[in-house]
């Protein structure tokens, strides 16, 4: 792995971030209406047209677009994300308050999803009886078709309201995440499991497996020692891509469970077209996406010796 390769990747990452910022800026500006309008046109405030025009001017919402663009990109570079018009607090404070919840939810969700996926994949080739194996193999299709919010509400109704096992209102910190993590993990585990199952099937047909079996390795040993290592690689790539799903799932999960994370924040910001908040979330998500994929790419050659000599192939 050369330093030139690394520099190139970091440069790419910065380019992606800039593009994400610019595209989201243009899209947010292209939408009819904006956060100031939505907030102050609210009849409950009873402001006159003139008062609203004054407020707009005071927020700098009436300047030329390119000036606003330069202004906001300059602010971003200096770490000033602006004010959330709707909530009336700095965006950075809002992000700081919401980010830990989502990080925890996403990490635990991904961990559980991986456990589900590995369990499904291995059971689907280890379980006795063909019918059981095919039943287990169809679980990912079921998991991916269950709407996240429906699953969340059903889990709440059954485990919290009916069986009273975990409260959803005022839960302990450790209880708070049980149901949301399950809700989030189910749809994420499905594509992971599917790819894993297919890879295991494929690797099982390779000649070296036959060789290993011929040497007297048990089915279990072949699966764990020889197949797993090879089948995991493509799954890792999928895992990087799944991050997007994770964010989307978090929006719904956090809304249903009233968790105060980036997902819930996004949902509210979209509703009120709070451009400053959305802009920050887009850039943050893009950054996370870029970093995760970068890590995946860098880890690949470590796991797969074939890629070590030619880093370009990992991209």
């Amino acid at each position, binding site marked *: 792995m050369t330093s030139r390769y690394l520099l190139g990747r970091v440069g790419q990452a910065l380019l992606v971030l800039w593009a994400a910022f610019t595209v989201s800026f243009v899209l947010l500006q292209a*939408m*009819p*209406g904006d956060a100031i*309008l*939505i*907030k*102050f*046109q*609210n*009849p*409950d*405030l*009873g*402001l*006159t*047209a003139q*008062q*609203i025009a*004054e*407020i707009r001017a*005071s927020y700098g919402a009436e300047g030329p677009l390119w000036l606003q663009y330069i202004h906001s990109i300059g602010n971003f570079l200096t770490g000033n994300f602006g*004010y*959330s*018009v*709707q*909530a*009336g*607090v700095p965006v950075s*404070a*809002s992000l700081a*308050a*919401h980010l830990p919840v989502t990080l925890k939810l996403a990490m635990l969700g991904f961990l559980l999803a991986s456990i589900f996926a590995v369990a499904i994949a291995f059971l689907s080739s280890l379980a006795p009886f063909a019918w059981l194996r095919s039943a287990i193999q169809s679980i990912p299709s079921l998991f991916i078709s269950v*709407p996240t*919010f*429906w699953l969340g*509400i*059903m889990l*709440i*109704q*059954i485990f*919290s*309201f*009916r069986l*009273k096992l975990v*409260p*959803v*209102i*005022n839960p302990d910190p450790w209880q708070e995440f049980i149901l949301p993590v399950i809700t989030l993990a189910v749809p994420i585990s499905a594509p992971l499991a599917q790819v894993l199952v297919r890879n295991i099937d494929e690797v099982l047909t390779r000649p070296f497996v036959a060789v290993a079996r011929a040497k007297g390795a048990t089915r279990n040993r072949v699966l764990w020692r020889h197949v797993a290592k090879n089948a995991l690689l493509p799954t890792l790539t999928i895992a990087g891509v799944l991050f997007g799903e994770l964010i989307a799932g978090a929006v*719904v999960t956090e*809304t*249903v*469970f*009233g*968790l*105060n994370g980036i997902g*819930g*924040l996004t949902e*509210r910001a979209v*509703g009120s*077209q709070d451009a400053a908040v959305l802009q920050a979330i887009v850039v943050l998500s893009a950054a996370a996406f870029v970093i995760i994929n970068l890590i995946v790419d860098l880890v690949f050659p470590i796991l797969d010796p074939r890629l070590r000599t030619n880093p370009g192939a990992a991209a």
Partner: protein
Amino acid sequence: MTTRLQRFALTLAALAATSFLSPSTYAEEGGEPLKGGTLVYLEQQAHTNLYPPAGGFYPNGGVLNQITDKLTYQNPKTLEIEPWIAESWTINDDATQYTFKIRPGVSFSDGTPLDAAAVAKNFDVFGLGNKALKQPVSEVINNYERSEVIDPLTVKFYFKKPSPGFLQGTSVIGSGLVSPSTLALPFEELGDATKIIGSGPFVVESETLGKELNLKAREDYSWGPAKLEHQGRAYLDGIKYIITGEDSVRIGALLAGQADFIRQVQAYDEAQVEAQDFQIYAPPTRGVNNSVVFRPDNPLVADLRVRQALLHGTDSKEIVSTLFSRNYPQATSIIASTALGYVDLSKKLAFDPDKSKKLLDEAGWTLGSSGLRQKDGKDLVLTAYESLPQPQNKETLQLVAQQWSKLGVKLNVLAGDSGSKTVDDLDPAKTPVSPAMVGRADPDVIKSQYYPKNRDVLRQKGGLSDKVQNFVDGDLNGLLEQLASEPNRDKRLAIAGEVQNYVVDQAYAIPLFEEPQAFAGAPYVKGVAFEAVGRPSFYSTWLDEH
């Protein structure tokens, strides 16, 4: 998230909740109030900006009502104005000068005295706004000129023109008194509840933005409204607000004993709450009824006969009986029957589809082959955006659309969360029809709703929108100005009656029902009170043994 799936899930969830929970025992009302405990209160939405004039938004009002006091107290039963922070007051004959005597010994929770100077500072900001800090003018204060501190406990307000609604205006949620240190902050920082320093029975202890807000009782509070039975500190030790957006989760959590009190209960959920002996609270909002209004600037509804046809073609009784409950009385005027100055106009609002068809024929709109009415080759197709804060507004508008389709008129109902709503709503050409409602227990509320410089629901030229071509109703505006400035109470109420008749005669609005604010509480929650417009006050609330 699709609405259909969501609805399906909610139904399932509701079924699950109703069938598996055992009913609790109902505790009798009365007995000696118990002190202590924290009320867990589930809110549907997070509060936004807590600048007091922005208190009209119910989540804001629900917080501000506990942490701020008002100069006067409007008795929610009699609607009379009673002393609170003001011990007494005098008003000159033409209602241009108000003098208030302030109760001694009152302080904000930061220790600043609540005296004449603080009151003057509050109303200077509410009445005139503060451009530098971006603080807007309050909609309940009309014609404000200036204040004068006469002595440390006497303050006098001057108005450019008569402002008879001001006394009641000092009692509303938007006139909560806050410490001068709060008013010194720019508007955008007032979204942080911990910065709102009031003199109320509760103070903000901590806040997790968008999720949770904790209030604790103020131990030295001894200045509740003078005529209330309860004096001294609040019975509760604290209130915990938790934002819970999902309807089914709020209801389920209340019934499962995880919460004590919730806001926003849909009419279709009332039965399952009451079936378990939990209490539904549906205080009226006493203002302009939940209505459909027209924007006559749009040529399709510019003809009085078309508007009248649609008014008589709307069956508000069917709307109430199909979608709502007994807590949502059918409208009999443009304002609620519990509102000040109400007159019964049910005769003028009668459902009469035959009359409607005749009126449309007369107006030149004839039934075409498509089943739609046509004139000069144009179809009578109208559009309205759903209003998200109003209960089941989409369903309501869809039912109205069904009723109108029987006359050959099509009403398109668009989703309230679409990005184009705020902009299109200003343009009568795009939204000839709109849902509308506003609560306030003073006849000024009619002006708030219709006057071009206030909410301007009819979209007049020179009002909120620059997209209006030429519609102005000088007669209506004249009446509204009189309403806001007539100092004589009887004359003022008479004008309120005239305005109601005028709006219905012009068929500017089709009133549907009197909108309550719906809450639900556990059986052991006692002494919940509501201000005149349905915002909860937990000052006298206590938790019985449970």
